[in-house]
Every structure is written in C-alpha cells, then in structure tokens.
C-alpha cells in the first residue's frame, strides 16, 4: 500500500537500529539509569509490539507506554452511564467497536447488547447520523470518545445534524485532551522520563505548538511521530540525537501528515461545538484538570448528557490496580501484583489490560505473563 510499505522497509529499519545503538553506546558513560522514552499514543504502542521494536533496542533504552489509549482510560462509571443510556427502549446506542468490551461496574456494552439493549457498532459517527435519518421514531446516541484525532469527526457530525435538523441524534461526549494529560504525567513526583514520541494524529489536528511546553518548561525532547515502524525508529533516533546534543525541542518526523499549525477546519469545528471541562475522571490516573471537553450550551439539543438522565456515578478503580505507576514508567507491567493473574485480557481489572493498545494487554499477549510466573 502506498505510503505504508515504504515505511516498513527492513533495510532502512536495520540502518536506523544500528544508528540508535551507536548513539546509545556514546551516551552510556553519562547514564546512571536506562533512558526512558515515552510513546504517549496507544497507536504507537501497537506498532512497537507488532514489530517487536523493543527487542531491537539497546539495553540502556526503555520504552514507557503512555496513557494515550482512550478506551483504556475510560472510567467504569462512564461505561455504566453508556449501559444506562443504551438500556432505554427508545434508544439506539452506537459506538466504535473498541469500546464494546470495556468493563463497567456491572456489565460491558457487549453484555448489555446480549441482554437485549439495541447497541450497534459503527465505523464512523456519520454512520450513526445515517441511522438517525433512517429511524426517526428512535433516539440515536453516538458515544464520542478519543483524543483530538477523533474530536473533529464528532464535531462535524453534530454540525451536520444541526444543519439537517436531525433532532433524534445526540452525542454522549467523552472526548479527552492530550496536553493536560502529558502535563499530569510530567508533574508526577516519581516521573523519570527522558523524552517523548508525540502522537502524530493528534498533532495533525492541533499542530506542533501545543507541545512546546514540554521542551521549554520541562526541558524534554519530543518528536511528533508517524505510525509505521520506520517512523517510530526514526523518531527514537531523533530524540536520542537531541539528548546527545543537549537539546530539548519539538521536532516533527511526520511531516507528510502534520502541518505546523494543525488542521484549521478541524480546529474550528472543535471550538464551535466543544468547551473544556473543569476536570475529567480517568481510569488509573484519577481526576485531571481540564483534560476533557463537553458540548457547548448552544448544542444542548444534540447533547446526550442534557437530553437524557445520565447517572454519572463515580466508581473507584480496584485498589490492587497499579496502572498509574505503569503509565508513568515507575514500574513495569509484570511488577504489578495482579498482572496476568487476577487481571488478564479476558477479565481486565485495570485500564491497561482493557484494549490491545494498552501496555499490559500488549505485554500479556506477547508472552510476558509467562516471564512473571517463570
């Protein structure tokens, strides 16, 4: 496939791996601990595991798999809210497939569907809008989740519903924002990270500048990164070069997609429909200030939180979970007491075991639970 195959080239991957090993060798005398580089985005985590990139890296470079998996960080209480909305007999509840298996305190959406609720997986929020057109006697709710990458699609769909007067469509808005979340990770007292791979598709929407604070205020190198294996290796090499040269800058490896100022129509649609919430609750990370958005009052007619009664109960994470520490790179997944035993992909207790993009599920699926029991 064009723009994909070229970025999976084995020869170039070998070259980059060699170059990374070379810088790591040069840095070694100065290091008191392995360098920890965080890939924030679950999409990057997926590529890293799929292509075995960690195995290609020198021992003094560790990848820390960040919290950028929207399905993983969805609190149980929000899943309960979805189930409650979906169990309304007048409602067709639509969602991306990823969210179906996320456990709530009583059941997941998949279990609610089995129990008779009308829940449908859609590829796009536009498909949910089509369902609303076709079913005027039903209320169609779309479960909007994800970072800034997915936010424009929800915003454009709401704007389209308004233009066409499709009043039986609404959005259950659970979108989250990247910058406050990275800031929360950086402000944590036990944080030991040395650099970041920034989420390429978030940057495609918001541009390069929102990441400046990481370089300027926290003096960490950060490279905006694409999603193919060569992109990841190339960006790692760029981060290491910054470390070796004593620089901390925002650099863009993913120039074929990311413009310095982001995407103007997308940003306009976002600011038209959404506003920042004072705080948002995360699974595994607790409450983070300004880390979510809600719909503006002007769009209340398309806001499921306004149209329906949402229980909005706060359900505490299981006490045994150590997702927060894993996400910050303080412990490895297999250091968690319940990793692979009480918490596994079939029966996830913690956020990071929920989706294949979560760090714990990725390690588990690659045989690391055997490492723990061995």
């Amino acid at each position, binding site marked *: *496939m064009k723009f994909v195959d070229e970025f999976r080239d084995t020869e170039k991957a070998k*070259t980059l791996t060699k170059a990374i090993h070379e810088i790591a060798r040069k840095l070694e005398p100065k290091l008191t601990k392995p360098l920890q580089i965080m890939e924030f985005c679950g999409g990057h985590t997926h590529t890293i595991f799929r292509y075995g990139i960690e195995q290609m890296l020198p021992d003094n470079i560790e990848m820390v798999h960040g919290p950028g998996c929207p399905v993983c960080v969805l609190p149980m209480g929000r899943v309960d809210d979805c189930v409650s909305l979906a169990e309304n007999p007048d409602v067709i509840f639509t969602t*991306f497939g990823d969210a179906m298996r996320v456990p709530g305190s009583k059941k997941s959406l998949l279990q609610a569907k089995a129990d008779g609720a009308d829940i449908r997986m859609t590829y796009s929020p*536009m498909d949910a809008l089509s369902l609303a057109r076709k079913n005027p006697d039903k209320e169609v709710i779309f479960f909007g989740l994800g970072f800034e*990458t997915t936010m424009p699609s929800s915003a*454009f769909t709401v704007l389209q519903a308004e233009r066409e007067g499709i009043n039986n469509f609404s959005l259950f808005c659970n979108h989250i924002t990247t910058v406050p979340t990275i800031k929360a990770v950086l402000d944590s007292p036990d944080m030991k990270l040395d650099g970041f791979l920034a989420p390429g*598709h978030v940057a495609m929407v918001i541009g390069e500048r929102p990441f400046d604070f990481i370089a300027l205020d926290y003096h960490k190198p950060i490279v905006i990164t694409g*999603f193919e294996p060569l992109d990841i290796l190339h960006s790692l090499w760029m981060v290491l070069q910054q470390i070796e040269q004593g620089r901390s800058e925002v650099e863009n490896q993913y120039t074929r*997609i990311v413009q310095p100022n982001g*995407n103007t129509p997308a940003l306009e649609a976002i600011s038209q429909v959404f506003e920042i919430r004072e705080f948002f609750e995360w699974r595994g990370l607790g409450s983070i200030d300004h880390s979510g958005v809600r719909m503006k009052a002007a769009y209340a007619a398309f806001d499921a939180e306004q149209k329906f009664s949402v229980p909005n109960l706060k359900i505490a994470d299981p006490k045994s979970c150590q997702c927060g520490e894993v996400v910050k790179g303080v412990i490895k997944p297999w250091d968690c007491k319940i990793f692979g035993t009480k918490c596994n992909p079939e029966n996830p207790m913690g956020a990071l075991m929920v989706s294949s993009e979560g760090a714990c599920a990725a390690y588990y699926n690659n045989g690391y639970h055997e490492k723990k029991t061995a």
Partner: protein
Amino acid sequence: MCLGIPGQIFEITDAERLLAKVDVSGVKREVNIACIVSDDHPVNACVGDWVLVHVGFAMSRIDEDEAARTLQILEELGEVQEELEAMQQGAR
C-alpha cells in the same frame, strides 16, 4: 483508536455535504472531506488527492514530497553509516 489509513479520492458524491468516495486498497467508501477543503483547495480539486482516512473522515492530505524527503533522509543515513563502517574496518 487514533489510527488512520491512506486512500485516494476518486469521486465527489455530494459537494454540498462535503462527501466524496475514497479508494483504500480496493475498498471503496464514502468519507467526509470537510478537513481538506479550503479556499485554496475547493471541493472539485480534491479528486485524485491522497488522504489519511480516520473514522469516515479524510483528515489530512498526504504530502508526497514530504514522504519522499523522509525516506531520502533515511537513505542518506544508511549511506553515512556504511561509510563509517568501512572507515572503521579500514582502520583495523
């Protein structure tokens, strides 16, 4: 969740609603093109564009020159490395 896939726009299906058909490795589907339309790049100019498709939206045009430039950087990195290795071998 945040992944996207490259596709090529081959037909505008509804100019008013900003809908177009995209071909992703032989799979064809309708996508919204609001993110790639501007005064400098009107709806009709989008036919033939390579775009990144995410949840039914063409989120960004793919810059072919930049893609080539990134690959060129990696190519050159390989050449430099070969030369360094040759030098190291020669010094032994």
